[in-house]
């Protein structure tokens, strides 16, 4: 039996985000919010899969670590709850050798509940000897890895309205004083891993994310 979703926000937002400056296919979108539209955008899907909708993937390094951030289920205003869906499997792929498209590591995370309290479980994290799990909105640590899942500010910035005006008028109308994502949130995961656990010499890393739903698409 599928457990009903809790603390999710289907259809919380009613807009599309850009980068497709002038896409004739759909309203402009951004990094990856509300894409693919026929699965995640309620303008095009009566049952959008908001929890499985990736917003952005970020990755950088520090002197001691590799940091990966995955944002999803947004953007949404500050009066909406975070989204923790037990039926979605999130995967962060990391390739550090050989074919850049063949992941050496697959970090998977998913949500579960203890009563009404949501928790998160990470498996396959480089350098760890077992799952990292615990309550959301809590810094979890194991084998030098830090991980957290929770609701945070959406870090993306972009003038959506300017792009829309550009698209409709054919005249570039983007303004650098107007950020459509101002005040918006995403549910997000942050993972910080010791460099020694991820890197393979000086090989570059290739990182990408996938989401999938148990029992089929909504």
């Amino acid at each position: 039996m599928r457990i009903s979703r809790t603390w999710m926000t289907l259809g919380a937002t009613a807009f599309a985000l850009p980068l497709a400056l002038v896409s004739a296919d759909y309203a402009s979108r951004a990094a990856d919010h509300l894409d693919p539209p026929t699965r995640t955008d309620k303008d095009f899907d009566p049952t959008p899969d908001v929890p499985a909708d990736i917003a952005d993937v970020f990755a950088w390094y520090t002197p001691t670590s590799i940091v990966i951030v995955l944002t999803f289920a947004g953007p949404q205003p500050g009066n909406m709850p975070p989204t923790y869906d037990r039926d979605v499997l999130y995967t962060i792929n990391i390739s550090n050798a050989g074919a850049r498209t063949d992941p050496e590591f697959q970090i998977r995370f998913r949500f579960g509940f203890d009563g009404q309290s949501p928790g998160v479980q990470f498996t396959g994290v480089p350098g760890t000897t077992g799952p990292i799990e615990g309550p959301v909105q809590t810094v979890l640590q194991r084998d030098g890895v830090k991980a957290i899942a929770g609701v945070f500010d959406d870090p993306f910035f972009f003038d959506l309205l300017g792009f829309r005006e550009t698209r409709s008028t054919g005249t570039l109308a983007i303004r650098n004083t107007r950020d459509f994502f101002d005040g918006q949130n995403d549910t997000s995961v942050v993972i910080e891993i010791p460099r020694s656990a991820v890197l393979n010499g000086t090989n570059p890393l290739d990182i990408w994310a996938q989401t999938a739903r148990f029992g089929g698409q909504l």
Partner: protein
Amino acid sequence: MRPALPLLALPVALAALGACSNDGPTAAPRPGPVESTPTPTPSPTATGTSFDVTRCLNQQVAPGVSVANLVIPDTVKLDVTKPNGFPNGRGLNDPVIDITLNVLFLDLTKHPATLLASLPLDPPGNEVKTLSDFPYLAPANGNPPMPPAGGTNFNFRTDPPSAYVSVDRMGMPAVATALISSAQKNAYNDSTPADDVAGKFTGDIVHTLTGLTNALADDFQRLGLTMCATPV
């Protein structure tokens, strides 16, 4: 020395950026209610000239790294021997859209890849300050209703990945959203970076980028910017 944006073009560009709305500099207003029946987005006015974008995809953004290399495969590339900063990795405050537009449309032998970001074309950064340490993301805006905290015995699924059906994938910002046509979007999101390298979507990317270039050429030309695409 950085290639110069024609001096006359810069004020024209800035004027264009600021002349099209009376909105204030703060948060953008929320869009109106969603229509029950989606309406196709109108296409902008094209210049009437068709362009070949091959040169755009082949131009170098770094030694040995072409624009096509950034887009295909659709992954975030992070080289720890080089400085952080998109497109080497992606930081929370990197101006990814301006840089992406720059390298897709402008001639990098005439303009630096940071030209649009240096204006900037879009907002220069996040509206709130990100954190210098873990978890790096800024706290949530507003006051989101939060579920009960705590718990120790969570009912995580134990089903194998094969029990799940693909929904979404992402690496580089805006590739799936801007460079993949609507007809290919679901197939693209169900595919892998290995499919990207095999060329499964290369034709679609070229076709989409060509359409965008044809539509925007007049804007870039009016701003005195040299496009990477060549007329056909």
